[in-house]
C-alpha cells in the first residue's frame, strides 16, 4: 500500500523507509509538516506515519488539517513524548493509532498491517477469493494449497486488488498505490507487474481482468473452488 512517512530525523526516516519497502509498500518520505500536507493533497496515501515533533508545524496540527479537509487516510502517530495527554489528543484529533519512540520494529510492522486491513473495511488478516487465500499479516499467498512466490510490486498489486475484489480499481489509483514517487517507474511498469501476477495465479487462481481505458479488476468468480 502507499505510505507517507513524515519524520524530521533523516536517519530514522531512512530506517522506516527500508523496513516498509521491504514489506512491499510504496513509501515516500517528507521531513516537514507543510510538505506533508502538500504531497498528501495530491497522492492517494493509505497510511500516513506522522511524527509529532516536526520542525515547522507539529504533528497534531498536520493531523487536524488533514482531517479538516476530509482526508480519510489512516494516520499512525509517532511521538517521543511520554504523556498520556499526547496520546489522547492525537486519537481525539482523528489518529488511527499511536506508537511511542523507541518502538519495537515488529510492533510498527504489525500496526501498519492492521491499519492496512482496516482500510478495506475488513480487518480480517486473511482474504479468500476463490481458490486463493491472501494473508495480509504474513504476506503469504496460496492458490489451491500451492504457495505463490511474489515480488514486492506484485504483492502490492495483488493486495490492492484483493482488498476490492470484484470492483474495478482505477488504473491511476492502482499506479499511485503501488509506486512511490521516488520509484523509477517505466510507463508500462504496472502492466508488467499485472501480467506477471496474472501468470503466477494461473491456472486455478482468480483472473485479473483488464477493463480497457478504466483499470483492473480481480474477478472472484473465476478460478476453481
Amino acid at each position: 500500500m502507499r505510505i507517507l512517512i513524515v519524520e524530521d530525523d533523516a536517519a530514522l526516516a531512512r530506517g522506516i523507509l527500508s523496513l516498509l519497502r521491504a514489506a512491499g509498500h510504496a513509501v515516500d518520505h517528507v521531513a516537514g509538516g507543510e510538505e506533508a500536507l502538500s504531497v498528501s493533497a495530491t497522492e492517494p496515501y493509505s497510511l500516513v506515519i506522522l511524527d509529532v515533533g516536526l520542525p515547522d508545524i507539529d504533528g497534531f496540527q498536520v493531523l487536524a488539517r488533514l482531517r479538516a479537509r476530509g482526508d480519510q487516510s489512516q494516520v499512525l502517530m509517532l511521538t517521543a513524548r511520554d504523556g498520556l495527554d499526547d496520546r489522547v489528543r492525537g486519537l481525539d484529533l482523528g489518529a488511527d493509532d499511536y506508537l511511542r519512540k523507541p518502538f519495537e520494529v515488529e510492533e510498527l510492522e504489525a500496526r501498519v498491517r492492521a491499519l492496512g486491513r482496516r482500510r478495506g473495511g475488513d480487518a480480517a488478516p486473511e482474504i479468500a477469493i476463490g481458490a486463493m487465500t491472501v494473508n495480509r499479516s504474513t504476506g503469504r499467498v496460496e492458490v489451491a494449497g500451492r504457495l505463490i512466490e511474489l515480488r514486492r510490486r506484485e504483492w502490492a498489486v495483488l493486495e490492492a486488488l484483493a482488498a476490492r475484489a470484484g470492483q474495478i480499481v482505477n488504473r491511476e489509483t492502482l499506479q499511485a498505490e503501488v509506486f512511490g514517487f521516488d520509484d523509477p517507474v517505466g510507463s508500462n511498469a504496472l502492466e508488467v507487474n499485472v501480467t506477471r501476477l496474472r501468470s503466477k495465479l494461473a491456472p486455478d487462481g482468480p483472473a485479473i481482468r483488464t477493463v480497457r481505458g478504466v483499470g483492473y479488476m480481480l474477478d472472484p468468480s473465476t478460478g476453481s473452488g
Partner: protein
Amino acid sequence: MKGAISLRFRLLLAMFGPLAALALVLGLLGWVLISDVVRRTNDRVLGGALGAIAETVQVERGEVTLDLPPAAFGMLENSERDNVYYRIAVGRTLLTGYADLPAPDISVLSVDEPRFRFAQFHGQRIRIAEIRRNLPRIDEPVVVQVAETLQNRNSLRDKLMIALLIGECVLVGIVLLLIRPALGWSLRPLSDLRGVIEARDTRAAPDLSPLRTGPLPTELRPLSRSFDRLLARLDDATTGMRRFTADASHQMRTPLSVLKVQVALARRGSGEALHEIEEATDRLERLLTQLLTLARADEAGVLPPDHEIDLKELSQHVISRRIRQAIEADVELLLEAGDGPYRIHGHRTLVFEMLSNLVDNAIRYNRPGGMAQIELSAEAGVVRLAVVDTGPGIPAELREMAMSRFARLQGERGPPGSGLGLAIVKSTAERMGAQLELGDATPGLWVTVTFTV
C-alpha cells in the same frame, strides 16, 4: 535540642534575673524605710515620755525636785514588755534612777532639745532619749534620760519586713507561674507556622508554592518570607531539572528508535544497516556527552572562577582535539591570533567545552572545502573569542531560538545535531558573565564570545 537553650528557658531566665534583682532592691529599700519609720514613731513616744518627766523637774528652795508622773511610764508600756530605764542627774550627780545608765557628754547636749541615741546597757541594746535643762539658781545643768529596750521596735520592724517579703514572693511567684501560659500563647503563631510547613512535608510530591499562613505577627513575617523565597528557588530548580530530564529523555528516543530499526534491518541482512547503527551510536554518544556538559555548566554556578586561562593555548588544545574530525569533513581548521596575552579567569573545563562545541558546530555545519576559524582579539578590559565558519549560517530571526535547548532548525543542515551545542555555549557564557553574539560571516555563522577581564 542539644546546644541551644529552649525559647521558654531563655525567656524565663531573661525575666527571672531582673525580677529577682528588683525584689532584692525593693527588700533593701523596704528595710531602710521600715527601720526609719519604726524608729521615728517610737522615738516620738519616747520623746513624749521624756518631755513629761522633764516637765516635772523643778527647783524648790534651791533644791532640784521632781515628781515622776506615772502616765509618762504608762506611755511606754507595750505588749513586748520592754524594759524602761530613766536617770535624772544634776551635773554628774545622780538625782534619781539608774546610776549606770550611760551618761551623755553634757557639753554636746543643747538646752531643752531632746536627743536620741542607741547605747548598750546590761548587755542589751537600748534607745536613750535625753534632754538638758537649765534651772534657775541651779549652777549645773539638769540631765533627764529615759531609755527603753528594743524588743517592740524590732518586732514591729520584723512584722513589716515579713509582710513586705511575703508580698514580693507572691508577686514573683505569680509572674513565674504566668510565664508558661503566656509563652505558650505568644509562641502559638510559631507552632501554627510549623504546622503549615509540616503539612507540606507529608505530601508525596512536595508542594513548593508559597506558604499560605494567614496573617502572621510582625516578628514571624521575615521568617515566612525567607522560607517562601527558598521554596520559590527550589521550585525553579526542580522545574528546570524536570524539564531538562524530560527534554533529555525525549531527545534520546529518536536515536534509540533509529538503532532499533537498523538492528532489525541488519538482522534481515541489510548491508547498509551497520553503517546506520554506527552513526546512531555516535549520535547517542555525542548527545550524552553534551547533556553531561550542560549539567556541569548549570552546576558550575556554585564554583568560584579559579583558573587563569590563556585562550590561545586553550584554542590550540581544542584544535588539536578536533583536527581529525575537520580533515574527515574536509574543513580547514585555523587559529588567528596575535601574540596575546589572551588571559581570562574562569572555569577551565567549562571554557574548553564551550569552545569545543563551537568548533564542532563550525565543522559539522559547513561545506566540503570550507573553513572554520577561531579568532582571538583583546581590547581594553575585554578579550574577544570568535568562531567563524563557511556553512549555511543561521537566519537572524532564528538565532535566539537556536540558542535554546534542544532547538533544531528547520531544513536539512547536514548531519543531525542534538540541539544542545549552542545551548551549552550560551549556558557557559552566562555562568562566566561573558557576552554571546551570533552574526553573519557571509556566508556562514559568526559566533562571538566577549569576556570581561
